[in-house]
């Protein structure tokens, strides 16, 4: 187990390094950078000397390899550089908004998991009945309705039913839980629907698979109550693949938030990402991509290690 863990942890290094190389050079293949957006966006007539001086200030005049080396050395010292737009440290810009996005993500996960488990289980147990079809339609809807449009529908219905819109300013949950929840529950619902659909489908299919196993037949044959067969024997084994999906989808929630935060006008990670992309703020884009990728890689690592604990065959292969 120790050898497997070490090998698996070491494997994350090339992936993260690859992400760094990819994002760094991809952003710089095509000419155009933050200085141009900043100084020439409004058709401003700025002399080349000023542009060059600004580039020099941000180190954009150095050869690419040197810029990359600087960035890597900085990251090794946990210094992610400064935003080229606001000129504040990338870490600061991100951590300002992480709290909000993380809370929405966690709430969406809770909503999704609590709805998905009964939904998926019902669909599997009543396979090919109207209940199953209803669940399948609801879940396919979740995969099809864009979360940002669902968010807009929520706003529209709040407006139509209560003539009320959620507040725009963010209040941390420890300051005023009610103000906080009335603002953030809606985006959590909007991104949670898709999440719930994915998890429910996974639970349905893995539960159907497990219900065909020999040990389920054995349990039934020895007269275990059907309720116990489902809850103890089947669901427990079906949840493992579902946990993988829950973990992976959690990182992909960031992707959903990128768009949905725009709808609810939330100043979170997603909005920051879109802003920095339209401003060509390389340092901030790089920092955020590294954060998201690192998050994904570590969730994956955790899932793999969890599997190895549960399934000894993986450790020895």
């Amino acid at each position, binding site marked *: 187990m120790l050898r497997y863990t070490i090998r698996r942890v070491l494997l994350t290094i090339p992936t993260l390094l690859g992400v760094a190389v990819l994002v760094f050079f991809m952003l710089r293949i095509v000419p155009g950078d933050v200085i141009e957006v900043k100084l020439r966006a409004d058709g401003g007539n700025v002399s080349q000397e000023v542009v060059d001086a600004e580039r020099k200030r941000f180190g954009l005049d150095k050869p690419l390899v040197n810029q990359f080396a600087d960035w890597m050395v900085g990251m090794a010292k946990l210094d992610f550089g400064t935003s080229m737009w606001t000129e504040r440290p990338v870490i600061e810009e991100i951590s300002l908004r992480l709290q909000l996005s993380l809370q929405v993500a966690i709430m969406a996960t809770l909503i999704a998991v609590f709805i998905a488990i009964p939904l998926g289980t019902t669909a599997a147990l009543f396979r090919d009945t109207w209940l199953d079809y209803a669940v399948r339609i609801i879940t396919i809807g979740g995969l099809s309705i*864009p979360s940002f449009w669902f968010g*807009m529908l929520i706003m*529209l219905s709040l407006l139509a039913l209560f003539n009320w819109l959620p507040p725009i300013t963010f209040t941390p949950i420890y300051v005023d839980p009610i103000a906080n929840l009335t603002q953030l529950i809606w985006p959590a619902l909007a991104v949670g629907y898709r999440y719930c659909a994915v998890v429910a489908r996974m639970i349905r299919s893995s539960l159907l698979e497990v219900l065909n196993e020999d040990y389920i037949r054995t349990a039934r044959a020895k007269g275990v109550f059907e309720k116990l067969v489902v809850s103890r024997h089947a669901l427990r084994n079906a949840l493992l693949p579902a946990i993988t999906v829950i973990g992976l989808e959690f990182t992909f929630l960031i*992707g959903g938030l990128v768009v949905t935060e725009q709808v609810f006008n939330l100043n979170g990670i997603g909005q920051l*990402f*879109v802003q920095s992309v339209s401003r060509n703020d390389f340092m901030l884009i790089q920092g955020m991509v590294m954060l*998201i*990728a690192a998050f994904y890689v570590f969730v994956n690592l955790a899932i793999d290690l969890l599997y190895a604990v549960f399934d000894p065959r993986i450790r020895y292969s």
Partner: protein
Amino acid sequence: MTLVLPQPTTPGAFSAALGKVGEFTRQQPLGAVSFVIIFVMMFAGIFCELVAPYDPLTIDFAAILAPPSIDHWCGTDAYGRDIFSRLIYGSRTALVIGFTSSFVGSSLGATLGIASAYFGGRIDSWIQRFMDVLLAFPLIVLALVVVAALRSFVVGGVDMNLILAIAIPIIPRVARVVRAAALGVRVMPYVDAARAAGYSNSRIIFRHMAPNVVAPYLIMLTAFIAQAILAEASLSFLGLGVVEPKAAWGLMLSGNAADFYREAPWMILFPGAAISLAVFAFNLFGDALRDYLDPRFKV
């Protein structure tokens, strides 16, 4: 008097295909329904000029924010443009970008997946490492980075930057699935026979192995058309995809649409419904195709 049609003695290719369609419809009624939706969308997208009642770009100050009526089925937007016509033109945008990017991404992914399985060893592990890197980005995040890198890059009225931005995240996801299928094909005797006969690697990959992984390829292709349409809508919504005044569903929801929650909810309802219906149809069709082509996956 009855008309006697000449009956072909052997079933031709056409009636064989028709039989397949009939079989698919019987086995997958939901898939057939979704195909009808896709067909209507494709028809509207191809014959926009004939189907749309108005020009999608004509500004009509006399009909700004008109509610749905007989003249304007889905109402008009803040410039008095007919929303129904813009939806029809938007289906062209969605289909062109959705289909092209899914095709490019799936084909590159499938090629890499088969090559990875065929060569094995060091090449396999290099390709897999590279795919792992691409997989570490959520789809929309990678698409945004590619958009940031390419900026606007339009060739012949088609947004190439958008197509590439959506195709690249698809590559690793398809490569993974196709590689798994191709590993099974790799050990087949006919691949060894082809190698023994001295065929080139590319010939073996494209002529001998590729035809045997067509099923997973097609399933992934249709499933990713849905994802690609969703991604295009999201990027356009963020103002980083298709740009005004071109008609695109995501774009119709962005910018000033949100300012009219109270006055003109139809500006939000119809484009979103169009996106959802299109993605729904492709998702359902992909599911049905999977069940039909590969009954092993049927759970």
